């Protein structure tokens, strides 16, 4: 089934424009397994990232957010789709041209332990980008490495030390310095704080915000922690089973989530306040396997929307603008472009109905 290409939140002058990006992985399970079709890790994602903004991507494990980040950087090769960075067709680049492009687009990883080469000093790690792109050599490079380490809150002398001597938070700073070395304009932050303790997490979050302010960086900020994303992002995309199901400004999304999945996700976040008790939507069941997603709306088997009916299992909901700048993939949240008689033909029994459970606790 083909759905019309909908690009939520198109920007007039995007830094990064992603259109209909897909990444399918072949599945082969176990020793006797045969190829069982494919996992649609990323399934037709379109989005724009503006200069100096943070686009948050939230979703639970297996929703494809990490693959999305890596596919945009071509660290995994996309199956199809279009990526333009500053007008350049990233998917058309080969060899040296692609490597040159990497100066502008960087990545910070989740795991501060596996993302640094244990056999290289952190100085050598930070320096690699300088060498590769001939940004600085010799003593100039040494100076630059020290400067970068200090910029992320580490001492310059640490350049000669190995990663195992550092704590998780410190390593994450090294990872940030590594990404900054080549002076990128855009960084994919792939769960950069989820492996860190709360107190250290705050340090890194502040650092990322400072760097963005000082250098005009744009972030694609991938995380499963909704509070962190709210804190970081200007606009937020919610992913479920490889697709964007809701897209809005951070403010609108957290104030009034329209996709039932986002509602459930937000209501599930434990709130550190024993006084306010909220109504909570507890979803039934697990996230379906991305190798075998449900038909129609991928969320419908777990959905709590009062108007959910057979049509949800039949119609793939288009991502529609339900309010200015607020895009949602749900045929039961009005307004929808899927006409009622089409829904009825698909077995609908409930008309679309605006459903907004009371969720957000008052701060």
């Amino acid at each position, binding site marked *: 089934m083909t759905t019309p290409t909908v690009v939520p939140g198109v920007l007039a002058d995007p830094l990064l424009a992603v259109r209909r990006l897909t990444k399918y992985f072949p599945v082969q399970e176990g020793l006797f397994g045969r190829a069982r079709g494919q996992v649609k890790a990323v399934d037709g994602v379109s989005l724009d990232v503006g200069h100096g903004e943070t686009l948050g991507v939230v979703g639970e494990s297996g929703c494809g957010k990490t693959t999305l980040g890596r596919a945009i950087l071509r660290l995994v090769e996309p199956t199809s789709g279009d990526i333009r960075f500053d007008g350049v067709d990233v998917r058309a680049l080969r060899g040296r041209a692609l490597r040159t492009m990497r100066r502008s687009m960087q990545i910070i990883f989740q795991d501060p332990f596996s993302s640094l080469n244990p056999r290289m000093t952190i100085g050598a790690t930070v320096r690699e980008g300088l060498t590769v792109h001939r940004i600085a050599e010799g003593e100039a490079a040494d100076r630059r490495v020290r400067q970068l380490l200090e910029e992320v809150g580490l001492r310059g002398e640490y350049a000669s030390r190995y990663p195992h001597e550092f704590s998780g938070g410190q390593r994450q700073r090294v990872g940030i310095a590594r990404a900054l070395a080549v002076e990128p304009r855009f960084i994919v932050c792939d769960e950069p704080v989820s492996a860190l303790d709360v107190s250290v997490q*705050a340090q890194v979050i502040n650092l990322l915000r400072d760097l963005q302010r000082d250098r005009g960086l744009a972030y694609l900020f991938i995380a499963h922690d909704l509070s962190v994303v709210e*804190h970081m992002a200007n606009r937020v995309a919610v992913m479920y089973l490889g697709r964007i199901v809701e897209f809005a400004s951070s403010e609108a999304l957290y104030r009034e989530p329209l996709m039932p999945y986002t509602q459930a996700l937000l209501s599930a976040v434990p709130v550190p306040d024993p006084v306010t008790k909220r109504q909570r939507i507890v979803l039934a069941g697990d996230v379906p396997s991305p190798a075998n997603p449900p038909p129609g709306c991928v969320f419908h088997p777990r959905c709590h929307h009062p108007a959910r009916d057979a049509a949800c299992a039949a119609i793939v909901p288009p991502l529609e603008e339900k309010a200015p700048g607020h895009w949602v993939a749900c045929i039961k949240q009005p307004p929808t472009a899927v006409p009622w008689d089409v829904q009825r033909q698909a077995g609908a029994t409930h008309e679309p109905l605006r459903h907004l459970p009371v969720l957000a606790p008052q701060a």
Partner: protein
Amino acid sequence: MTSPADVLLRVTDLRTHFHLGGEVARAVDGVSFDIHAGETVGMVGESGCGKSVTALSLLRLVDPPGRIEPGSRIEFEGRDLLALDNEGIRRIRGNRIAMVFQEPMTALNPVFSIGDQVAEVARVHAGASRKAAWERAVEMLNLVGIPDPRERAKAYPHQLSGGMRQRVLIAMALVMNPSLLIADEPTTALDVTIQAQILELLASLQQKLGLAVLLITHDLGVVAEVTSRVLVMYGGQVVERAPVRELFANPRHPYTRGLLQAMPRLGDHRDRLAVIPGTVPPPTRWPSGCRFRDRCPYAWERCATEAPPEYPAGNGHGARCHLVDEPARDVALAAPVA
């Protein structure tokens, strides 16, 4: 407050040290607390604070080079667990005190069916026949909300999702109707919607079965939602204890305050988060005096020279901080922003 007669578990001056060729890691260093029948106590702290080692110590599951030091006491239902022989403590494990661990993906043996693994508890502790144990396992899987339990009991762990495996672990823990359940980060590895399911399940089971729960977590949100009393750990010690509302309304220890201010919350529009500077020191090198002092915005001379005892602060509230002793110093250092 409940009377002392209700005390189910009383831990006094628990010290669990790891002797690492010359160095001693004092992972748990003088922890005392009570748990009353039927209540849910939260234990919070960041990695390296000693909360997991405390949990393992309660069932004497700490492996060498770790050792529970002499002078520690763990009294459970009137018996001294540290005085029991190996067979004696084995009879307690999974029977009177059960435990649920953090990693649902690896906490189940991959080569046995989940029914087998749940049934094993009944076989070990109740001497149940193979058939009776299996029936009990099916019953327990049903109790924890596993659909079609009779069929699912034959499944192997790899065929289940993380949330389902955590349910299996809970089922396994409850087979013998224990009076205390220790849950060590039971939802940390799970997605937030699954976490909500598991927390809900734990709460309903606790109601139904009347068991006491020690919930260990790093997430203050989880603590706020499900516990009635909280122990905050840092540096191998309980640095603050209080009823949950009291703790969030009126945290007395600077570490607790720091944690509360460092976490981003939904609907929180601060431009910058408050931070606790530095990192947790390794357990081989706790600072002298107060263990938090080199990260503490309030620290003064006394903190370096004198280890703070736990000062009572009324209403079952206590904190290991000289500020409670010298409230005049506790002026509004409002949200120390780094």
